[in-house]
């Protein structure tokens, strides 16, 4: 397989050059460093590829026919004699569709920055590429659900400016509301919700907050040094060793629980019911979830959880007795 591997690398480098060279031709003097960053290539690799470009050109390949690449003392790149590479290769159909899908997903997430610019860019892209590349893109749609969290901009500003803030937060797992000092590092959307990854100062640990459950943001005036907490792409729930394991039996109408929450050991029984284990730091929210599911789910373990459900139901029923 070494032969295949080598050709794959060459293909990647070619694909990259057919895109980077037009950029450098249109933006003379771009620094090697910024080109490397924009196109996601290690600087050394880009330098090597540009050195090869220097030896290519058009027939008869005399000194006056070769592409001229000059990297000046400030690292600026100047390319000439490359008119045939002054414009990039068209987007392939998968590339065009992937851009379209991603932008559609973002535009359906309320609170996205620069939404109007993204929407107009998408329209221009569709018009320019046309049905040859995109097919009938009219069928790709996003539905905007809900509205942007009230304090999203303040959270974003704090993360961008590395400012420590005080937030009023309601945790879904405990239902408790508290004021915490946090150092927010990243704000991202996942499955339709916005999240803030932050260092919780009092807890001295990393925490993930849902932006729509933050009911107040106040600047403390302090700045912080970022710890490099992981943003988009992270697991939304990180199971820990000391987690409780709640084993549930889910009937078909409650099967969504196994999809929606982080679950382990999911077993489908012959009758179509599902057994699944939910890791949790406390059982309170699971008891309420089971109250919601009613006859569609049963607790297999721990048995004490059944009494907890009855107690919550009795307390709730009290509200209606007056």
């Amino acid at each position, binding site marked *: 397989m070494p032969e295949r591997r080598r*050709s794959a690398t*060459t293909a990647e*480098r*070619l694909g990259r050059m*057919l895109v980077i060279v037009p950029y450098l031709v*249109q*933006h003379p003097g771009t620094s090697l460093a910024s080109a490397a960053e*924009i*196109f*996601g290539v290690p600087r050394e690799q880009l330098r090597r590829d540009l050195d090869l470009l220097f030896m*290519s050109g058009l*027939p008869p390949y005399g000194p006056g026919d070769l592409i001229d690449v000059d990297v000046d003392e400030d690292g600026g790149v100047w390319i000439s004699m490359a008119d045939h590479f002054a*414009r990039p*290769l*068209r*987007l392939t159909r998968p*590339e065009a569709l*992937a851009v*379209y*899908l991603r932008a559609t*997903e*973002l535009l*359906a997430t309320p609170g996205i*920055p620069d939404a109007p*610019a*993204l929407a*107009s*860019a*998408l329209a*221009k892209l569709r018009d320019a590429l046309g049905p040859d590349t*995109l*097919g*009938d893109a009219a*069928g*790709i*749609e*996003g*539905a905007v*659900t809900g509205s942007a969290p009230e304090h999203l901009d303040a959270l974003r500003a704090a993360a961008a400016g590395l400012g420590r803030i005080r937030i009023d937060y309601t945790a*879904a797992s405990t*239902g408790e509301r508290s004021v915490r000092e946090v150092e927010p590092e*990243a704000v*991202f*959307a*996942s499955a339709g919700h916005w999240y803030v990854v932050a260092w919780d100062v009092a807890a001295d640990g990393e925490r993930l907050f849902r932006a*729509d*459950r933050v009911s107040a943001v106040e600047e403390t005036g302090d700045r912080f040094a970022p710890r490099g907490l992981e*943003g*988009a792409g992270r697991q939304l729930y990180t199971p820990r060793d000391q987690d409780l394991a709640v084993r549930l039996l889910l009937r078909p109408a409650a099967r*969504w629980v196994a999809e929606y929450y982080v679950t382990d050991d999911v077993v489908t029984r012959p009758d179509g019911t599902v057994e699944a284990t939910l890791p949790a730091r406390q059982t309170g929210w699971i008891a309420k979830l089971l*109250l*919601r599911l*009613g006859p569609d789910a049963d607790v297999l373990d721990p048995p004490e959880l*059944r009494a907890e459900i*009855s107690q*919550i139901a009795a*307390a709730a*029923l*009290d509200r*209606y007795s007056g």
Partner: protein
Amino acid sequence: MEPLERLLNLVGLLLETEHPMTFDEIRRTLPAYGGDNLDSAKRKFERDKDILREYGVPLEMAATDVWDVEQGYTISKDRYYLPEIAFTPEEVTALFVAAQSASEETVAARGVRKLLYGAEGGVLAGAESGPLVAGSDTRSARVLAAADAASARRRVRFGYRTSQGAVSDRVVDAYGVVFRGGHWYLVGLDEERDAVRAFRLSRYTTELEDVGEGSAPPEGFRAIDHVEAGPWQLSADDRALIASAPGTVVLVESTFPGVVRERTREDGWIVLAIPAADEQALAAMLLQFGADVEALEPPTLRDEVIRRLEASVHA
């Protein structure tokens, strides 16, 4: 000579040539394919052709002259070059940020890089803000396959598990893909049921298989109309009133899109209006707030909540 250099020369040559070139002509012009061993040069050329096609370079074969005696290679400029698109710097930046992903390299990112060459100024402010959306990355190959099928009007087959857990094979004429509430759906005509259905991509039990040409959707079809918003589906007519403990109101608001605060009760609880079409589903969801939420109106909703609570107390 490095293969990359040879490939760059080949692309340049075939883009600039005025007539399609036979392999012999290419071999005479490009020293990289020269040498005594014709077979090895041919093999090299075949490999290079594959690489060009892999990257979407539109390499074509055409007659070298009007008598159609010989076939030669050429790259059509029209099909090779990206058309001019006058993006503003804000638009290019928005696309660039949108395509960024937590994972290393995505198809979308590769596509957007091709669009950057026209960016005025070139330097992208805001590009360092990091990826914005996670979540659909793991399924992006499937979303792409669904969008591909829908935009080309294909018929596809796949295994599907309903929310109730029933698994079956579906054959669907793909009409559209819709992102709603954090999920992607394929919307299309379910052949067996002869009705338009929406299929959540995370519930597929197999990959999509292309089984031929599909039908066209009816005039005025909107895929988005076929994906339900959820049990609390927005509706202009139906409104439920509930009361929430002050500490829980943020959770309630983050659960129900479109909820409106009406007033604060004497006991400090907050009365909220929820657009709701399905009483059963809403009653169930309210139970998830335990004793911190009370259903007020309509009376049927209140009764349903009470009925469910009584059943759970005695369970």
